[in-house]
């Protein structure tokens, strides 16, 4: 199962990113586990300096912006 993590200390953009990614995964029929990472130590482990960030199976895909659904789909497929 794919593991999708959303990194961010609880800003509004983080929830937007989580929602959009959930929709993208659902439309692609991907069965994924979603984790919201709000602990700063966990966030820094990924070397991310601008939140929100999207991490798929341990790899940072996006940081510092909220891509649209189509872009997220492309990221999840690659």
């Amino acid at each position, binding site marked *: 199962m794919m593991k999708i993590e959303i990194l*961010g200390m609880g800003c509004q953009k983080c929830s937007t990113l989580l929602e959009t990614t959930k929709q993208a995964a659902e439309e692609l029929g991907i069965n994924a586990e979603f984790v919201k990472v709000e602990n700063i130590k966990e966030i820094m482990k990924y070397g991310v*300096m601008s939140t929100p960030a999207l991490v798929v199976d341990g790899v940072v895909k996006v940081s510092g912006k909220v891509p649209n659904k189509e872009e997220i789909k492309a990221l999840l497929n690659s």
Partner: protein
Amino acid sequence: MLDVFADYMTYQVFEITKGSKLGDAVNFFIYDSLKIFIMLAIIIFFVSIIRTYFPPERTKQLLSHKREFLGNILAALLGIVTPFCSCSAVPVFIGFVESGVPLGVTFSFLISSPMVNEVALVLLWGMFGWKIAMIYISTGVLVAIISGYIIGKFKLEHLVEEYVYQMKVGQNEIESMTVAARLQYAKDYTKEILRKVWLYVVIAISLGGFIHGYAPQDFLADYAGKDNLFAVPLAVLVGVPLYSNAAGVIPIVYALMEKGMSMGTVLAFMMSVTALSLPEMIILRNVLKPKLIAIFVSILVVAITLTGYMFNIVL
């Protein structure tokens, strides 16, 4: 060009009588909003392209192990173009400190980033002229350099939460962007900012057109004019807890200035609102001990107050 369009809209499309009070107000409103939105779009677009060359990861490398002072100057200048949102303040702070950016240099960046940027530049330019805009930007950078430098001199590293120094920060590749990707980023960013600020701009310009009649022109001049020595520190202190970006504070700035508050006091108020806020302090509490937050706020309050006095004397 723009005035032709504004004339056309006012007198032909809306059919308002030329020379009437309403006509003047509507004409002024259309002309000024168009001017500011065009300026915003063009300047944000170009700054966004520059910005793609300086993601925080790159800024961190540039500032790492820089000498003080030179580092403070560089940090304050990079703060103008680096994207910053107060929700990212903590990861930025940890990333900087962990990679060897001196504490004072980090603060110069944290102060400059929200306070001076292209949105503040365009709005001040469009509403009050390029001189005011330049004065705001250059003194904003100066405040960031000096405040950060002083914090650095105090050697306050022990007032940063210990875990920050023990943290293992992962390495993240900085992806190189194609020209097309940079243009796309700039387009998206410009749209996002315009969507965020248009309402404030419209409010500010409407105030400009309609406020004249309602409150007496020099309503604030007696209380907050140049002669009142308490006006500047009071304006700065009121601004400290308030949270707003440069765009959100512009309508208030406009109203205050219109009603006779002196320029230095108003600019000091704007700096204090954008550079310091209660939410930001709460977020920074994750990495700074309360004493360092207090020192940070006090130094900035003093620096901004002095800047305000200086403007009131010079302007």
